[in-house]
């Protein structure tokens, strides 16, 4: 099946005072129709940069595109004009951010903000059939109902500060889904929330996506969150994707040493004391990234070649792609 969104060899650098930071080092990623893909990794590995690059939200400069393309519906998003991007943002690719308070304007009521979003998107439509505000409001109330805000017709008059964190995130999800976009990017949508609220939001997100049939790219540092929602998971480390496979394969048979280490580090309820290992060392500085495979200084199974050559993604098993010199050729021969 043809993917909805396909990223090939995306390289992005940032010019900083200390030097050039090699933030994305050749990302390959594809998102199929109705697919749910989780993008996991630790702080600074480039998860959010990838999301922002897709929507072209990175400030240029300091960001600089070195190579690569992002194909959406067969067209390269990186070659679009700003006007064309405006048509895509929110309507075809929408995004839900981490901290709902910073993305809602505190001086406007939820009603004004939702109605603005709905009418702006409708009125930019080619047909020029203007939605009036009354109609937009009706739609806004319906949307709030859909994200399970109680008494939507009353609560729509509230201001963001009158809503709790969970409710604000619901509003943002309502906004993002208002134009039923093909792709929904959720960047750490539950990180600012408490666990009991997180469980509510994840369930809501799951239901809505099932109903609307959007493709989802869920970004999180929490493998547990991703496991709950996604069918496939891509693991990022220091600007590249080291492993990309189905959720089952990732947890049951991870290939990459980093993924193995990461799974070993996570504290779960079943883990006994001292069972969690952690990974030696810290996250590398992306201004002076390690040569070859960027994980080699922390890797327990590093070989000579790891210092010299960057491993390219290999399909070690069917639908299980890993970038590591331990898997030089395909394990299973394709016929």
């Amino acid at each position, binding site marked *: 099946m043809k993917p909805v969104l396909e990223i090939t060899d995306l390289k992005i650098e940032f010019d900083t005072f200390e030097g050039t930071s090699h933030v994305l080092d050749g990302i390959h990623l594809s998102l199929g129709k109705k697919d749910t893909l989780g993008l996991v990794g630790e*702080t600074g590995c480039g998860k959010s940069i990838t999301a922002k690059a897709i929507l072209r939200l990175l400030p240029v400069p300091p960001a600089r595109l070195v190579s690569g393309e992002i194909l959406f519906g067969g067209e390269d998003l990186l070659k679009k004009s700003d006007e064309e991007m405006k048509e895509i943002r929110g309507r075809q690719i929408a995004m839900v951010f981490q901290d709902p308070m910073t993305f809602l304007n505190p001086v406007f009521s939820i009603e004004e903000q939702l109605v603005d979003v709905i009418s702006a998107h409708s009125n930019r439509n080619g047909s020029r059939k203007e939605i009036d505000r009354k109609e937009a409001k009706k739609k806004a109330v319906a949307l709030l109902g859909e994200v399970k805000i109680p008494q939507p017709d009353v609560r729509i008059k509230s201001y963001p500060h009158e809503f709790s964190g969970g409710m604000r995130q619901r509003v943002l999800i309502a906004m993002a889904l208002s134009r039923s976009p093909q792709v929904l990017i959720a960047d750490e949508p539950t990180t600012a929330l408490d666990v009991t609220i997180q469980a509510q939001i994840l369930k809501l997100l799951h239901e809505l996506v099932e109903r609307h049939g959007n493709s989802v790219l869920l970004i999180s540092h929490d493998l547990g969150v991703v*496991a709950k929602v996604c069918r496939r998971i891509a693991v990022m480390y220091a600007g590249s994707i080291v492993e990309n496979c189905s959720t089952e394969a990732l947890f049951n048979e991870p290939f990459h040493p980093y993924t193995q280490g990461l799974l070993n580090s996570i*504290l779960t309820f079943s883990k006994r004391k001292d069972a969690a290992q952690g990974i030696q060392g810290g996250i590398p500085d992306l201004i002076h990234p390690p040569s070859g495979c960027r994980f080699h200084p922390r890797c327990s199974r590093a070989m000579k070649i790891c210092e010299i050559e960057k491993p390219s993604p290999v399909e070690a098993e069917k639908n299980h792609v890993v970038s590591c010199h331990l898997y030089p050729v395909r394990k299973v021969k394709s016929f």
Partner: protein
Amino acid sequence: MMDPLLHVKNLKKYFPLRKGFLEKEKTYVRAVDDVSFSIRRGNSFGLVGESGSGKTTVARAILRLIEPTEGEVRFEGMDICRSSESEINEMRREMQIIFQDPHSSLNPRKTVFKIVSEPLIIHEGLRGKKLRRRVEELLETVGLKSEHMFRYPHELSGGQKQRVGIARALSLNPKLLILDEPTSALDVSVQAQMLNFLESLQRELDLTYLFISHNLAVIRYTCDTVGVMYLGKIIEMGEAEKVFSMPRHPYTKALVSAVPIPQAEQPETAILLEGDIPSATHIPSGCRFHTRCFEKIGAVCEEREPETYCFPDGSQVNCHLFKSTALDDEAGHGGGSGKPLETKDR
């Protein structure tokens, strides 16, 4: 049995809210509302709860960084709440806190050496070579090298910064360490390292930990005893293993089932709580959890605040569901009405 190192009894902290300056009636944020627990020497006690449940306020009241409204905090038998300023200063040497955010709890304009040596200069009057040797020793204990000594906080990684905070806390040989979300700001691969390190440090230096976290897995991994807080109250307390494997209080059940598990097979039976956490200014009547409870038994939950029911295994629960069970099962142990229980002393 030895006396507990720290004994907290009926601790309350209400923050007054002024409504407008003509308003006579004062409202309060009841951040901590009658909390009792005790920690034995060498043990780790964990406080878990969601944001706003009052975990950090408990920690700050224990150190008397804020004045408790009511209640008693006994540290080695001395009542902290009724001690004078100078007595408190002496006592603070013995109890130290490590904060959540290592970036903001270290002075960016001081080197690691200055940060770690400050308490030694103030409390012990160390100078010159002696001071330097002691700082080197401390850095070594927390796994930093002497080359880190003259660096500034911004030159260190998050994990290293947290280690500097630990070195500073350890400098006066405290007996009690309060760890307020010590790993929340760290990445998972570093978090496990840090917890294992804290664990070995405890064994080595015979420390007692009060561990505060919203992360249930972290608490289960590190603590012997755990108290689950909801809106300023401990609603369930007991051995960590038992509380998490066999939660009794409906809130604990929901909390445990809400934690996303990193595995391929996702359990279907997640208990989903409805609604949000009520505000601490308007704590619901009766049982404070009744607005979200899925096992509510009736009017009694809305009207009467549940007492503390103790179980023979040493755990205790604040929930009307256990009124009969706790009493019937073990007549000798049950029915403790709000009495703080010496945890695990059986």
